[in-house]
């Protein structure tokens, strides 16, 4: 129950949610809700792990994971953008599809033994900072450091660049973008692909760094859905997504650690003496997601902020009012 260790592990496991959440932010900012994050993450985790077994190179695993998840995201893109079908049902279908394919192709992977994983290292100097150093810069996975750089970059991209402006516009008012001669369809395909690649990256971060291995559906255990929930909490903002993700990561670690000691805050630890009380702890991340959704929704109503205006609507050229 060392708070430093809990926060350090929280940042590491939170990095998984971070990539997935930012990926979904890209897709939703372009106007396409993709509920298939869970399925795409499983595809990523499975592809990363099996590619690493085959090649011995975890970086090839990461690359393959991003490509595989990006590829399967295009099924959703085709159905919702070109065929204009309902984004909710298509996203659900993508989750089933990704989960099913991962289970079939991942058969036997759980017995594969050890593989070479992504490296962990400390950053000289930065790791000497009191309190923050041990949490953020000591013996973290390279993916965690990529996450630190990635978040401000995406924030800058979305809010302060020309392509970022196009991205926001296509999610708010696609016909305006169309009238400028920019293809709404191409942009949306592209950002759904980016979202898929980032979900794949999140999956690879699980199976090659944070909790290495392939444990079929339990590899992700609903984290893809938590990511979809975090997008709403984050108000489609990468920086808020980062804090949300790390908080969730820390919560997951806290749940594990709280069951260890015999004495908790001077009392006999009920979770140690009655292990089945631990199931109430297991509920916490999911209950917390619902609470976070309530907070996000209330805030959105109060500030009159909210989802990109065109989120969920297919763009049909020439149709009025879209």
């Amino acid at each position: 129950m060392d708070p430093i260790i809990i926060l350090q592990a929280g940042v590491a496991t939170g990095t998984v949610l971070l990539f997935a959440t930012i990926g979904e932010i890209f897709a939703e900012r372009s106007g396409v809700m993709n509920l298939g994050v869970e399925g795409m993450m499983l595809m990523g985790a499975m592809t990363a792990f099996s590619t690493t077994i085959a090649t011995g190179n975890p970086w090839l695993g990461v690359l393959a994971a991003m490509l595989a998840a990006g590829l399967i995201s295009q099924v959703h893109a085709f159905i919702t953008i070109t065929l204009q079908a309902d984004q909710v049902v298509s996203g659900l279908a993508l989750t089933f599809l990704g989960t099913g394919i991962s289970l079939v192709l991942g058969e036997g992977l759980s017995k594969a033994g050890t593989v070479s994983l992504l490296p962990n290292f400390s950053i000289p100097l930065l790791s000497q900072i009191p309190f923050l150093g041990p949490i953020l810069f000591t013996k973290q996975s390279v993916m965690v450091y990529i996450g630190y750089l990635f978040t401000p970059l995406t924030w800058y991209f979305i809010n302060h660049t020309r392509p970022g402006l196009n991205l926001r516009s296509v999610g708010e008012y696609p016909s305006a973008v169309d009238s400028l001669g920019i293809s709404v369809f191409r942009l949306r395909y592209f950002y759904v692909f980016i979202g898929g690649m980032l979900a794949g990256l999140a999956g690879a971060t699980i199976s090659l760094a944070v909790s290495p291995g392939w444990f079929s559906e339990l590899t992700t255990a609903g984290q893809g859905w938590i990511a979809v929930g975090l997008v709403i909490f984050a108000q489609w903002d990468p920086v808020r997504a980062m804090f949300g993700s790390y908080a969730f990561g820390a919560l997951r670690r806290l749940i594990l650690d709280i069951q260890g000691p015999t004495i908790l805050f001077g009392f006999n630890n009920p979770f140690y003496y009655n292990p089945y009380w631990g199931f109430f702890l297991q509920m916490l991340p999911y209950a917390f997601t619902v609470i976070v959704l309530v907070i996000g929704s209330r805030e959105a109503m109060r500030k009159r902020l909210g989802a990109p205006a065109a989120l969920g609507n297919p763009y049909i050229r020439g149709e009025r009012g879209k």
Partner: protein
Amino acid sequence: MAESTSTHKKSAGYKIRVEPRLDVPPAWYPLLVSLGALVFALFLGGILISFAGGDPIRSYQHIARASFGDIGVLSDTIVKATPILLVALACSVAFRMKLWNIGAEGQFIMGAFGASAIVLAPVLSAETPRWLMLLVMALAGMAMGAIWGFIPGYLKAKLNVNEIISSLMLNYIAVAWVNFWIFGVWSEGGFQMSPKFPNSAWLPRLSEYAKEYPVFRGLTTHAGLLIGIVAAVILWLIVYRSRWGYEIRLIGDNAQAAKYAGINITSNIIYVMMLSGALAGLGGMSEVSGVVHRLQTAPIAAGYGFTGIIVAWLAKLNPLVIIVVSVLFGALILAGREIQPSGIPKMIQGIILVSLIASDFLLRYRVRIVRADAEE
């Protein structure tokens, strides 16, 4: 919809033209499209199976034989179809209102818990007359399912919380909740299951009547099937023949118009989520009382909630069609248990749903092959 035509492919003087459908297609057309999508999905699934090192034709043959081959396996198929039927009904009524209840899995599990609590708490003693015991169990299952549906419904109606994620999160909470009871309070000798229910808590099976009708010997089909069929008929009457059903369909088709017509959307969201949860909960009761005969997580949290979504969609949300489609999926799940690799049934379900949604395009658009030099 304005005139919009687009050209997709050119080949040898002909091209494919896609144009919006202005007329209403004949009644058999959606059915044909769905069947076509199903066949296409099985074909695609076959390709993927052979990729994964399996033999698609033998896999499908195996599914057919192991689920419809003789009366014994047919009975087992129906046993598998029963929970799917009730869960698909639950999904269909919510989806009809464009309310994305994907928490039917959790509501099913809570229904199983509620029904089991009557036996295990115990609320009623084992000597209670069977009809009373089963009635109270069914009511308790429906009540627990309805509560589990009420939570995301209330959050959606009052606080505008996305029901997709909240109902899904409640699935995980339901599993942990049941695990708490069967690992701890109701654990039988440290195993992760409750003690077996007394006979008064078992839904009647066909095999019980083998003395009078020898054909029924060994058949596991239980009264849950009747419950499911009755529920389907009642739900059909509610949705298509009642004022409430009219409101539900109107909200689903055009929420704005429903609002102007003075329909209370907020309370309908809550009521429909509760109805949906109650149906799924009834499915959970039928499963513990008709099949498992004890509370245990693995056999009840087996993904029926998700299969139900696909079945509801394949049946175009029509409760009576759901009865037939459930049997097909019961077959897939029953036979799928022995197929290697074990993820194949799930993958095929995913492919079926994907091609179904894609095929809806053909209902809204007409795809025609015309001469390339034809006037636009």
